[in-house]
């Protein structure tokens, strides 16, 4: 995507645009980090490739003026969610959408190079080429995709002002909810054990909350001290309560950008909880988040004929 620098330079020259929210190269091999370009010179640092993993949408409200933002399809779904809930203004956004064939997991790649010093890397089609101090190696992008990517059915952002990259055709996608269905089949005791083992590890650093583009409450329920819903203690009891409510608050809203999963230092499979909520909302209320700005989120509305089989 060689033209993104030119596009950005043109945009930043406009009087109405305060900053461009994009990515720059990080210090680590395969690392990209969020970057905010405010001058034409800044724009030269901008990059856009399959290693641009962060969802930048949560940074929009840090700027008072209009911003241009690079979004992958999943990030754009978060924009839809925020627009639906009136958290951002469409007029203050210039959305540069990117067609996406899936983003790569930088940690997985770093593991694959086994600690060798990387001079540079480049992405060509479905291959990633790594240049070492001496020699080079090629990897298949397919093997290093983030967990959320293989089953993703949205390869073009649902909302954009301009669109970059070639259209991506997908066929024979694996089932998005396969893992959830697998877990659902476990007996209750095993389910509980599975989740307890994960919840027990939780550090309560709240990286999952803070990185989530749709967790925008000014005061999260975990910060509330009166009433203190969730104990400060880091133990299974309160960690579990925290995770249940976190997932519930995203029911019908989570657009599966997988940022919570990526952010969690303790590798708690948060996406599985979110996907369960997605499944539940889809089954009961026939709703999939991140598609339509004009439809209210499912848990802020109701239908008289909603299912109620379990109610006596």
């Amino acid at each position, binding site marked *: 995507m060689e033209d993104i620098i030119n596009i950005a330079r043109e945009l930043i020259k406009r009087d109405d645009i305060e900053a461009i929210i994009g990515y720059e190269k*990080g*210090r*680590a*091999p395969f*690392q*990209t*980090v*969020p970057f*905010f370009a405010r001058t034409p010179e800044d724009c030269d640092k901008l990059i856009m490739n399959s290693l641009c993993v*962060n969802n930048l949408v*949560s*940074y929009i409200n*840090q700027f008072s003026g209009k911003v241009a933002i690079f979004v992958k399809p999943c990030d754009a779904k978060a924009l839809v969610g925020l627009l639906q809930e009136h958290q951002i203004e469409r007029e203050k956004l210039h959305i540069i959408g990117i067609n996406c064939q899936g983003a790569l997991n930088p940690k997985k790649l*770093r593991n694959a190079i086994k*600690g060798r010093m990387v001079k540079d890397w480049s992405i060509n089609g479905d291959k990633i080429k790594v240049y070492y101090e001496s020699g080079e190696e090629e990897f298949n992008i397919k093997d290093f995709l983030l967990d959320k990517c293989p089953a993703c059915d949205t390869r073009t952002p649902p909302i954009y002002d301009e669109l970059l990259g070639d259209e991506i055709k997908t066929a024979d996608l694996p089932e998005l909810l396969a893992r959830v269905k697998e877990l659902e089949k476990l007996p209750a005791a095993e389910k509980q054990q599975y989740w307890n083992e994960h919840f027990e*590890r939780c*550090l*309560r*650093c*709240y*990286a999952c*909350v*803070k*990185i989530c583009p749709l967790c925008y409450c000014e005061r999260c329920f975990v*910060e509330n001290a009166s009433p203190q819903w969730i*104990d*400060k*203690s*880091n*133990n299974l009891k309160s960690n579990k309560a925290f995770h249940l409510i976190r997932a519930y608050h995203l029911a019908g809203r989570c657009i599966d950008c997988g*940022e919570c999963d*990526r*952010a969690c*230092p*303790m*590798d708690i499979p948060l996406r599985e909880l979110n996907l369960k909520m997605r499944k539940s909302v889809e089954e009961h209320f026939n709703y999939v988040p991140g598609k339509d700005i004009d439809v209210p989120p499912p848990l802020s509305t109701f239908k008289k004929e909603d299912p109620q089989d379990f109610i006596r």
Partner: protein
Amino acid sequence: MELILKKEKLKEFLEQLSKNYEIIAPVKEGELINFKSVKDFTKVVMTYQKSIKSPKEFLFPQCEELYKYKFSGKDVEIKPAEVEKKPKAIVGIHPCDAVAIKILDKLFGWDYKDELYFERRNNTLLISITCNTPDWSCFCTSVEGTPYDADGTDIHFTDTGETYYIEGKSEKGKQILQDNNNLFTEAKKEDKDKVEKIKKEIMEQVPVKFDIKKVTENMDCIFDSKLWDRISVKCIHCGACAYLCPTCHCFDINDEGNYEEGKRIRCWDACMFGHFTKMAGGHNPREDEKTRYRQRIFHKFNYYIKNFDTISCVGCGRCIAECPAGMDLVKTLQLIEKGAEHE
């Protein structure tokens, strides 16, 4: 005192050690390396890249009870917390994490000597290992550390391939080696040479990234710099960096209980959280990312020097490797090294 332990005898050594100590060692959990209380010593992973959490939690737990209270009529009954009596041995601790414990000692033994901390501390044996797998985020050499010099531990290991090269550091450590003499062989000159060679090789893998003297000198005149606005925008103010950091030690004291009884606990807290400095009246002296991030850097590279004559960072790189927003402490310190005029 330098000895050699064959790798297959490590299990036996740990078994001997476990007669008197609870063994805390790195084990693999999924993709993560984590320090855990271990009973099955075949699971111990001595050569590892970076444990996700530092072992500080075994001296300063994330949450600990200070005392229990119970109301009966007009009286209050108070029962102070007790620390586990069985000594612990933290095995396989990297030099950076070991140095961090020395840094924590200063804080907890400052104006008030923290009884709970020191009860655990004095009851803990530290067995370190040379870190021969540094990764891109490591920068111990830039903060006056090395991947092999674990100052303040009792016994030090170096992985030399087929064997461990073992140094008794403290009296306690030397005694333990003495007691298990049958497991070791005496180290020869070539073993020593091998270790020196390993040390040299690892040092090359962790190049010095900035001049820490210059950084700390510049700190005093950088407080009001515009630099902070720029570098802190990315920060999402979660607590991952502080909770994974081996030297971060801020805590919050809380009561948990009901009308009849409860406990007073202290739990880790982090200066990156918005509510960390929030006061009862609603005022927050550190309201934005900028002031919070600046606090974190200043605490580690300025205030701590003023109080304890040492920086409070050991270069383990966890905060860099695990930051979900890609904040990079090394980059920040490099900017500070250049000084405020380069903002």
